């Protein structure tokens, strides 16, 4: 492994990327910061408001603080539930997927299909699918006598969104785990057979450790997407019933576009973004750790 040379002329290679991403991020971010530190009396005149919006936001006794707190915990609960279901399920399905032969190609394509559907269409599918009158899922549950009603009943709405997300994104974990499993050299399985390892030992002592890096990516991607989810729940429940499924993004949308309350919306956006930044930072350090160990 030849060490990477230092070459600052490489910046010319990176400038185009910098240009395109900056164009879409620098001005919007500045606008959000701008609004988050000002207040307006209407008719477009603004005055300095310091960190007042942030103090209200982070103080649960204020109305906006309370609302932000609820939305944040609702979203974190949703993310956590999805992760707890999708990661193990994804690994299990990857372990069962065909490894050799003709079936591999089609199997991967079919599994990946849900991820190819526009998010609003996913919402539409599940909106129809969960109706008691014309949806198989809705009809089946009500047929079993369960008090299942997406638009009225909080638990139903919440579980529907979770089931939809599991259906929509578990394939990502399946494909990631599958890629990780395929990279394990055959000699490891031969050695395990020789050592008389049980199927569980093979999984826990060979497959899981080797999946470590891929799972870190899976957890990051899944956490981020669930933490920022907007379109699908918005189509299926619109945040309802009440605020049962009003996740951070949906709440933010209501405050910004609905009530045109720019100050609060901007402060909330920034805090929301800072949370994603910290999670990214934690992930990035873990990834460079794993990368360095691979080179040693």
């Amino acid at each position, binding site marked *: 492994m030849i060490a990477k040379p230092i070459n600052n002329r490489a910046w010319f290679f990176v400038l185009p990327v910098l240009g395109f991403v900056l164009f879409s991020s620098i001005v919007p971010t500045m606008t959000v910061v701008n609004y988050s530190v000002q207040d307006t009396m209407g008719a477009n005149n603004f005055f300095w408001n310091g960190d007042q919006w942030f103090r209200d936001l982070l103080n649960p006794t204020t109305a906006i603080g309370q609302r932000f707190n609820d939305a944040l915990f609702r979203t974190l609960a949703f993310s956590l539930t999805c992760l707890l279901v999708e990661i193990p399920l994804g690994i299990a399905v990857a372990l069962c997927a065909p490894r050799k032969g003709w079936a591999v190609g089609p199997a991967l394509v079919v599994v990946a299909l849900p991820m190819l559907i526009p998010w609003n269409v996913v919402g539409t599918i599940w909106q129809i699918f969960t109706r008691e009158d014309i949806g198989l899922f809705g009809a089946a549950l009500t047929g079993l006598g369960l008090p299942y009603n997406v638009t009225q009943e909080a638990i139903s709405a919440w579980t529907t969104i979770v089931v939809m997300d599991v259906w929509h994104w578990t394939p990502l974990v399946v494909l990631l785990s599958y890629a990780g499993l395929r990279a394990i050299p055959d000699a490891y399985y*031969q050695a395990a057979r020789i050592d008389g390892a049980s199927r569980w030992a093979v999984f826990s002592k060979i497959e899981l450790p080797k999946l470590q890096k891929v799972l870190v990516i899976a957890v990051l991607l899944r956490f981020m997407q669930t933490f920022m989810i907007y379109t699908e729940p918005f189509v299926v429940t619109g945040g309802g019933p009440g605020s049962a499924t009003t996740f951070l993004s949906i709440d933010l949308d209501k405050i910004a576009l609905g009530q045109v309350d720019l100050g609060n919306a901007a402060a909330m956006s920034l805090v929301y973004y800072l949370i994603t930044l910290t999670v990214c930072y934690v992930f990035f350090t873990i990834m460079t750790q794993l990368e360095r160990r691979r080179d040693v």
Partner: protein
Amino acid sequence: MTSITLDHIAHAYYGKPREDSDYQLKPLNHVWEHGLAYALLGPSGCGKTTLLNIISGLVIPSVGRLLFGERDVTHLPTEQRNIAQVFQFPVIYDTMTVAENLAFPLKNRRLPKPVIEKRVAEIAEMLDLTADLGRRARGLTADAKQKISLGRGLVRSDVSAVLFDEPLTVIDPALKWELRSKLKRVHRALDLLMIYVTHDQIEALTFADKVVVMNDGRAVQIGTPAELFYRPEHTFVGYFIGSPGMNFLPAEVEGARARVAGFDLALGAAYPDLPKGRSVQVGVRPEFVSATAGPGLPAQVRRVADLGRKRLAYVSLAGHPLVATLPNEMESVGDSVNVAIDAVNTHVYVDDIRVAGRAP
């Protein structure tokens, strides 16, 4: 403790093999005696790894039976064959410590804890791993990892054979000596059958009691290092063993003398009834051809190579290339020199197969 019997084993990877040429591994009959160290030596693609995989159970042979002792294991899966294997690249369980790695096979067999600990300590001591027992296996050097891989096999008292698939490939050249002598000492200490696949003759000859020289899917000769060196049964073995390989000169053989490139040559044995019209060659190793100030066959010197502990003269005998040893006392050599050929170690090959002569 068992020996391994190959009963007409042959293998073809694809299609229905009809005659010999379809087989990647030509039919082989052989008994591997218990307690001996065998080497499967040959160039890449000669079938040596296929043979190893048949013994380990990774490959089921198309034809023939494989017996461990009296038990027919031909179709038995690997885990029921009581073999251990050290692979080309170190295969260890990263998340475990060295001790846990060594204990792993015994834990799977649910042996009591004290038995496991005693056995692990024993094997660790034998492989100089005692100091690293507590450390995480991932951080160790390649040769230490190979020792762990070997140790996982040796801890099992029921292991019948230990297979090595070119284990020194990733080892630092300076450490190869150490690991090789360690393997040799382990083999001496444990009365085990060991099979070692390699393309490197030094590793094969120094490790094995018996060497199976293979080429193009066929076991060309099976013998001790001395037999392969002093009496190669096939021109390929003469060429492949020894660095540089055996000299071969076309010859007409009459009784105990041979006409080689217009010169007359004494042979170590008499060959009265040689079939006519077949390619007849005389083979002698450079170690037994020496340049001499005294009488000998006149040869032109093309090049002299100084190997430190010996010097070789690359000469041409009436147009035929020949490699001879340059004795120390001969300081420098002009354009031509006489070469003396040791009759006892000169062999006759008809169509590449050695012909045994009778006492002259």
